[in-house]
């Protein structure tokens, strides 16, 4: 079962990755990466707030995360952005089962937003099809 700390860990990693991704993009792709990073920061902030107000201690971010492959240019930056959105979406998807009411709505919205961003980055990267059949489902 996925708990709030798992979600927070995924969002910390996503924010770190976008720091690297953004440095290798220009123009519209860079703007999309900035918007994506802002969205992940908002998700992180909401998780920190929820964990703190529930009496928990939000786990802080690690200073550095190992990237799955070296990011050296626009193509590898887009590939990482796609992977970040796929992985983060998968964590939100697995969190759905333990939610209800308003929390399920926000969890579902997070999954949907990750999937849509992944699709947009696939289009920017020229990957077809730009959609996957079951967003968030482990392959």
């Amino acid at each position: 079962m996925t708990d709030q700390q798992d979600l927070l860990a995924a969002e910390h990693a996503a924010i770190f990755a976008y720091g690297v991704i953004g440095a290798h993009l220009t123009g519209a792709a860079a703007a999309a990466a900035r918007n994506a990073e802002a969205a992940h920061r908002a998700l992180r902030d909401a998780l920190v707030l929820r964990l703190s107000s529930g009496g928990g201690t939000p786990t802080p971010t690690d200073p550095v995360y190992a990237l799955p492959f070296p990011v050296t240019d626009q193509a590898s930056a887009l590939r990482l952005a796609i992977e970040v959105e796929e992985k983060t979406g998968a964590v939100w998807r697995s969190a759905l089962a333990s939610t209800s009411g308003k929390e399920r709505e926000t969890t579902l919205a997070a999954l949907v937003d990750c999937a849509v961003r992944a699709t947009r980055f696939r289009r920017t990267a020229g990957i077809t099809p730009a959609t996957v059949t079951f967003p968030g489902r482990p392959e």
Partner: protein
Amino acid sequence: MLRAATAVAGAAVTAPLAGCGLFDRDDPERPDPLDPLLDSTVRLVGRYDAAIAAQPELAERLTPLRDAHQAHAKALAQLIGRPASRLSPSPAPAGSSPPGGDAAATLAELRIAEKTARDEATAACLAAPADRTALLGSIVAARATHQEVLR
């Protein structure tokens, strides 16, 4: 005499209960809250088939979306115990995607259909028991990405 009366009473009690669905868990016809979503998903496959038939130039773009809806229908049927015969789309109703219509109009129609379909799946996901949320969440997300690529 006493024994016979008990047997009759027993039969009388059992019949209505079975009809109520309390003891027929494996009955393939027992309604499931996801039956309407399965049916509308199958109809959506039919809409894509009709659109692809009418505008073959859109086939490359639309086929992955059509196949995704087909895979969703299959997963839903499996989840709620429906036979594969429920997965065959009926012929598209007259008037939808007439052959020779323009591609932009077809894409716009499908985008609206995806929005409606996404809203329906969202409602189903929010109302679903925990063990169904992951599949329904993926279906909602897929439909959102379909709207995106139909732009």
